[in-house]
């Protein structure tokens, strides 16, 4: 076999130049990545210290040992806390939290979709004004706004009295689960409106015209064109409402009278009152896991149809 093959020289040369340019591109890319990393470093360090590390502690605590005086000690790692998760009480609390979160999300969706649709079909100037109006509640603290609802909902409150005048309700809203749902919907509605607005605003309205030209009814055009195109907003908004509602603590405590346990208050109770860090941590870890998995599934499923 002859070793030298002169005709093959040219391609080989080409190869090396390609490798060289590739290398240059690579270098440039890496430099960019490094730059990005350095720019992101403060945030990354911040997240590691204030998010990842505490999360690690929570996970470690969930396997830790509770002393007879209620102190959590990081030794004799065990699954005792997880064994308690099947208890009736935790299951009841979990189902109630799930149900309330789903209900709050659905109500938010029903209320927010027409509003977002309305806003995104206005002229830009009006649109901006309406968006600011949606965001205005954020200018004051959530806790203060929730306490304000207490005044509106108590037996002499505007809402309660108003409903009574209309012959609705038995004069009691505060400290019921209706008050909790109302508080959740009120608190998280903007989180539903804003992503929905972003999605609907991006819809190409010529597609709707096209649908109408092809004799689609208004409803059919909405169902077949606008709704599918706005689905990313529906998904994002639903997640933004569902996730905080599922772990809500402040709203049930202030408006619900801390009565029927929800997961958020159950976790707080375990840490602050029962002095049972392991069980509180185990519930937190499972809640976190469930939300993470359902978020992933939801986005995967939604992603295919986008």
């Amino acid at each position, binding site marked *: 076999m002859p070793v030298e093959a002169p005709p093959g020289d040219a391609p080989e040369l080409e190869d090396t130049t390609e490798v060289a340019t590739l290398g240059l591109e690579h*270098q440039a890319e890496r430099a960019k990545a490094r730059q990005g990393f350095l720019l992101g*470093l403060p945030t990354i360090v911040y997240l590691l210290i204030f998010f990842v590390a505490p999360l690690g502690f929570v996970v470690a605590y969930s396997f830790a040992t509770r002393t007879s*005086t209620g102190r959590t000690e990081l030794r004799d790692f065990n699954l005792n806390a997880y064994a308690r998760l099947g208890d009736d009480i935790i299951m009841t609390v979990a189902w109630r939290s799930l149900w309330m979160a789903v209900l709050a999300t659905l109500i938010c969706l029903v209320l927010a979709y027409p509003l977002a649709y309305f806003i995104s079909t206005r002229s830009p100037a009006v649109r901006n004004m309406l968006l600011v109006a949606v965001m205005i509640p954020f200018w004051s603290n959530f806790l203060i706004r929730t306490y304000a609802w207490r005044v509106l909902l108590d037996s002499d409150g505007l809402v309660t009295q108003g409903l009574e005048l209309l012959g609705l309700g038995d004069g009691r809203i505060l*400290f019921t689960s209706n008050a909790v749902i109302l508080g959740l919907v009120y608190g998280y509605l903007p989180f539903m409106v804003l992503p929905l607005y972003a999605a609907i605003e991006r819809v190409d309205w010529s597609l709707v015209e096209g649908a109408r030209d092809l004799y689609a009814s208004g409803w059919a055009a909405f169902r077949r064109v606008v709704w599918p195109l706005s689905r990313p907003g529906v998904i994002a908004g639903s997640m933004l409402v569902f996730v905080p509602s599922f772990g809500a603590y402040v709203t049930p405590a202030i408006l619900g009278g801390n*009565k029927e*346990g929800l997961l958020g208050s159950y976790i707080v109770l375990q840490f*602050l009152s*029962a*002095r*049972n860090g392991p069980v509180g941590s185990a519930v937190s870890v499972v809640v976190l896991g469930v939300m993470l998995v359902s978020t992933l599934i939801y986005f995967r499923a939604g992603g295919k149809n986008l």
Partner: protein
Amino acid sequence: MSAMRKWIRIVALLGILSVVAASCGSDSEEAAGDFKQCDAGETDGDLAFFNWSEYMDPDLIAAFQDEFGVAVTEDFYPSNEEMFAKISPGGTGYDVIVPSDYMISILRSEALIQPIQKDAVPNHVNIADKFADPPFDPGNTYTQPYQWGTTGVGVDLGVTGHDIPLTWGLLFDADLAEQYGLSGKISLLDDPRETMGAALKYLGYSLNSTSADELAEAEAVIADAVSRVAAFDSDQYSELVVAGETIAGHGYSGNFLWDFEEGESEYTYFVPDEGGTVWVDGMAVLVDAPHPCTAFAFINFLLDAHNGAQLTNFNWYASPNGAAEEFIDQEVLDNQIIYPSAATMERLEFIEDTGEFEIEYTDALTRARG
């Protein structure tokens, strides 16, 4: 350049590890036991005070700041358990806390509070004999008493009328709720020991019961009452009664009296015939208090006869300060809600630390809430 990247990663990791290590390491250093020695009236910086809400006269804080030239920050907690959960990991920066009796034994056994330097607290001689040697802290070695009081029921008599039975049944019994229109107008403390304890007392048991059967009965009482309860609340039970949002509330004597002054209706507070809780809160200095000398100066300041009287005249809880008595308003001393009669005292019990059984109390209350 990959070396560069590796380098960055290593530095970042080391940084995080050192932060984590530092935060873990800090609690193991305190066990040493030799605390900074303080002289009477000595201060070593600003004071961080962790106290129950609506329990301290702001004027006293101001007077202390003026006299000693230090600033005081006051934070609040609604229950012993919450305070314990917050301070037990250490490093909170708080100097003085105000735990109740059973919590004092827990804090002592957990070595979270340091001995009182009696030389730095000369006013300890003002403490009445009755409070000088309590079972939860023999000889007041770790704490100095702050105030004492009872836990019972506050009622809006304007709604119920004056003719009410003095029983826990007002909070727990369906028939009485029906009779006095209390349904949905009741609040219970959000506190496992107090609330389960009230139900135990209602059933005629000790509120320190460690019997699973008795606790299960008490749990059934609360579970049955939940449908008539408006809220579990340890902060605003008295405000809720005065606002008309509730008619009967479970809570502490002084807070009820305090808020009843504001209300337009006629109110009363009583310790039920079945008996209730008597408690003493003590002032303690945390082992890792950053300013122990200011802490002792503060405790000494509050044990002064005049200041102790001012505190009681402000918060309407009884004073353990014997020397203060002559400066306390006569109407306060004569008030049987603040200073219960000997007959009432007979029926009262201290909450005691039940060790492993504490968790049963919490779980019972959580289950009962449904």
